[in-house]
């Protein structure tokens, strides 16, 4: 009479058993989340606990499963489980270390302060170039302290136009990557790296000065490493200078305005042993009145503005590694009839598809970037708007976001008409340095390739008449060209010329 009910009871019990099995599996799976298990050995676990995080670039990418002594008892073995998404970042050569509050003395400063109020965690860095991902179960020797390049990775990225220079100091007084570079109390840049010179005679400190402060560094600037310093005498009282360096040492520099010339990338300067004695001049009265400063005074006196043109691109190759193209040269800057800031330069300088060749057809040029360094040091992006279709190695750029008060070559200093003055006639080629500052004019002539002469402006009879182009566009390297090949401005189309020319 109850036959069906017995079956239903059997099914219910079966369902209950299956449910219990499923639950047990689910709960066990919670414990066995997917991921890559790794073992990292440390000399000291530094308070690391199971459940602590594993972080990469500050992002949680895993957890510590257990902390135990190694069988021989002289290491702490930390089992970590990396999330599947992060496994490609942990590769052969990755450095693992434990982040805890750490006072490294004056030389290293404080780090890991966030772990004062939270648990210690494991961090790791991805080497560059990236190695093969660590296989599950790998045993890695952890580091006792963060690798230096891990700190370098946390630095501000270098932007195009930033000044990169080297400071030579007798001794590193606690500078670290990231230590600030200070001018008149304003941080204008940072320390990128600190390294002992190869011969051990001094320490080389690589500095980055942000491009907007580039003009504050001249060849007459004095650098020093700021340390707290007590000066004064009993009667006059004492002064503590650079008190801020108590917390972290920094690089200071000072340059008198209007003294010296701007320095190019790669500039080397020696630091003074201590803060030099200088008196800051009072703020100039003209500034107080709000009069414009001579920021544009950097234009050459003859009214012809030559600018630095930097080109970067990648040529993609199918079977061989991609080639980076990096070129720097010159260009002639003026404002055209519609108010655009136009730079006339050599096409072989700013067009990778013109100079590169590929055995399999047209070269594939990617990631093109054209930057123009103005005489004042400012850097603007530029776009290529015209190339001479007649294969005469001439190109026109238009600056992106040019300031309204930009000073270009005066129209009466431009010779677009058919030119009777041959390039071989007396005249000079005007070139600029990496910072956009004019270099000494070079007389025309000579077939030896000149580095970074491409786009140089030939000035004859007080007027800009032509630009230096490549001898052989397929052999252009580093913007080199000999100063005998010119293309006349005459080829520039009328809509790219100033009004009335």
């Amino acid at each position, binding site marked *: *009479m*109850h*036959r*069906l*009910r*017995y*079956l*239903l*009871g*059997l*099914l*219910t*019990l079966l*369902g*209950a058993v299956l449910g219990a099995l499923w*639950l047990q599996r*689910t*709960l066990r799976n*919670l414990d066995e989340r997917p991921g890559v298990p790794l073992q990292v050995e440390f000399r000291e676990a530094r308070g690391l606990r199971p459940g602590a995080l594993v972080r990469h670039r500050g992002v949680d990418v895993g957890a510590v499963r257990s902390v135990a002594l190694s069988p021989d008892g002289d290491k702490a073995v930390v089992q970590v489980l990396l999330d599947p998404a992060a496994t490609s970042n942990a590769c052969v050569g990755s450095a693992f270390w434990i982040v805890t509050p750490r006072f490294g003395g004056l030389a290293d400063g404080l780090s890991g302060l966030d772990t004062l*109020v939270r648990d210690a965690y494991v961090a790791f860095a991805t080497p560059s170039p990236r190695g093969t991902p660590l296989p599950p179960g790998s045993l890695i020797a952890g580091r006792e302290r963060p690798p230096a390049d891990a700190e370098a990775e946390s630095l501000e990225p270098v932007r195009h136009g930033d000044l990169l220079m080297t400071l030579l100091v007798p001794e590193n007084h606690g500078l670290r990557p990231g230590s600030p570079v200070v001018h008149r109390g304003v941080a204008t840049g940072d320390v990128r790296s600190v390294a002992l010179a190869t011969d051990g005679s001094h320490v080389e400190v690589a500095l980055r000065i942000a491009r907007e402060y580039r003009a504050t560094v001249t060849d007459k600037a004095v650098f020093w490493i700021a340390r707290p310093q007590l000066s004064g005498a009993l009667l006059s009282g004492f002064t503590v200078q650079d008190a801020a360096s108590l917390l972290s040492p920094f690089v200071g520099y000072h340059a008198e305005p209007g003294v010296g010339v701007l320095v190019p990338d790669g500039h080397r300067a020696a630091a003074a042993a201590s803060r030099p004695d200088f008196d800051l001049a009072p703020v100039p009265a003209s500034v107080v009145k709000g009069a414009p400063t001579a920021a544009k005074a950097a234009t050459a006196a003859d009214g012809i503005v030559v600018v630095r043109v930097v080109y970067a691109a990648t040529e993609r190759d199918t079977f061989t590694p991609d080639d980076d193209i990096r070129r720097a040269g010159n260009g002639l800057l003026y404002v055209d009839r519609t108010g655009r800031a136009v730079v006339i330069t050599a096409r072989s300088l700013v067009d990778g598809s013109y100079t590169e060749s590929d055995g399999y057809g047209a070269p594939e040029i990617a990631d093109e970037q054209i930057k123009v360094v103005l005489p004042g040091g400012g850097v603007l992006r530029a776009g290529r708007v015209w190339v001479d279709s007649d294969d005469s190695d001439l190109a026109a750029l238009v600056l992106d976001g040019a300031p309204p008060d930009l000073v270009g070559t005066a129209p009466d200093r431009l010779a677009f008409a058919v030119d009777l003055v041959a390039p071989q006639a007396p005249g000079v080629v005007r070139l600029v340095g990496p910072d956009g500052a004019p270099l000494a004019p070079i007389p025309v002539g000579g077939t030896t390739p000149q580095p970074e002469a491409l786009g140089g402006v030939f000035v004859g009879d007080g007027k800009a008449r032509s630009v230096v182009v490549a001898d052989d566009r397929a052999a252009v390297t580093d913007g080199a060209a000999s100063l005998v090949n010119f293309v006349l401005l005459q080829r520039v189309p009328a809509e790219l010329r100033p009004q009335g020319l």
Partner: protein
Amino acid sequence: MTDAAITFAGFGLAHRRAGREETLLHGVDLALPTHGFYAFVGASGGGKSSVLRLLAGLVEPREPAPRVAGDLVVLGHSFAADFPPALRRDVAAILQDEGLLDERSPRANVELALRLADRSPLLAAGLLAQVGLEHAPDETARLSGGMRKRLAVARALASSPRLLLCDEPTAGLDPAGARTIAALLRQAHDQDLQRTTLVVTHDLPAFAGKLDGVLVLDRARRTLRLEGPAYEPNAADTATAPGEGPVRASEALHGLRTLLLQAAGFGESLLEAVRRLPPFDLGEAARATWRACVEPAPFVALGGGVLGGLATFFALQNNPLHGGMESALLTGTGKVALAVLVPLLAGFFFCARVVAGATARLGAMKRSNQIAALQTMGARPADLLLTPMVWAMAIGMPVVTFAACVAASFAAMAAAAAASGTTAGGFVHAWLAALTGRDAVVVVGKAALSGLLVAVASWHLGVGPKRSSADVGAAVDRAIVAAMAIVLAVHAIATFAEYA
């Protein structure tokens, strides 16, 4: 076939008890002619009620069914396996204890029976008048014994049955009252020329002159026989059985059967809870839900408030940082209180408050045959009783949990102000900082799921076999423990799966 209402052909019936089988009837060959009004007599414990329950389709589903041999044909339907559903309309039963629904008025009892028989509820007045209850009180619980019997007759007639079964309709009545009921039954019998009536009774004098025959259960011979209306009980018929039947079933088998039937009952309760979710009686479901939301809310909110306030006060007072990071402490306390502790506590309180009541009510209904009466009327008891419970608990539990969380938050705000002078704005900001919409979904999900399961457990234990009041009490005890275990398990699993 039409001349026999009930035919026994080689019929046998045996009780299955733990370790043994007790044979009640053996090889019965008998036919009860249609349109007879029969009394059914025999010694107590001889199986009269068992036969009657079998005929009424009231075999207890949670216990091993009686062993049935041979064939039993009722109104042309054979009882080969289970009670034929087609018979439900044609068979009505008046059980001992009447099985009246005390929560409804007498009129509503009859109306429900009419509605279940697909007849107009307007007929209720006529039926009540027929049994002399046109001026009955509005509360069924206040009816006298005789009135309850009469109401039961009216309700049984609502479906206009072809076979009317009565179990001791005159028990507990004085001779005059007994005769009145007997006359009423005979009168109801005569209304319908198709109707056959079988009355189990020990009180043949009350039915004197009204019977067409007497069905006698001969305990000694374990058989049935039909006597004339003038039958007088004799000693042989009331003698006890000469011995137990043969041992047929092992104790283990009986235990296994009971276990399987219990499991089947639980599985069926779960299925019913889902299949019967659309309310049969929307008003009843809404009323039950409203009660489950409102009645326990103050009590549960008080508990939540005490928990939230104490947890916050001591967290701040025992601050390991001695006056710092208060907001972080509040954030942690808020998360653990609102997402884990208060919902769990609210679940426990809800079980104690609502599940106990519901199970006790169901147990009493089962014990007093109300559930069996609903079955004989053709109703699915789950429709009328389980569905409102499922709605009430699955909605009431989250609502009450929400009330507890709100109370806990206010209490915690007061505690934080007392312990460390936290302002209201700062408190709210810190208290809710770590809570997300997902937490709310998890909390509501935990409460709703445990509410549903608790309702099923309460139903399952409430409508299980009830032989005594002690069974009802035991069911309530078990229901509270089971409900709390369910709440604990659901919360533990969900919390662990979500946050671990």
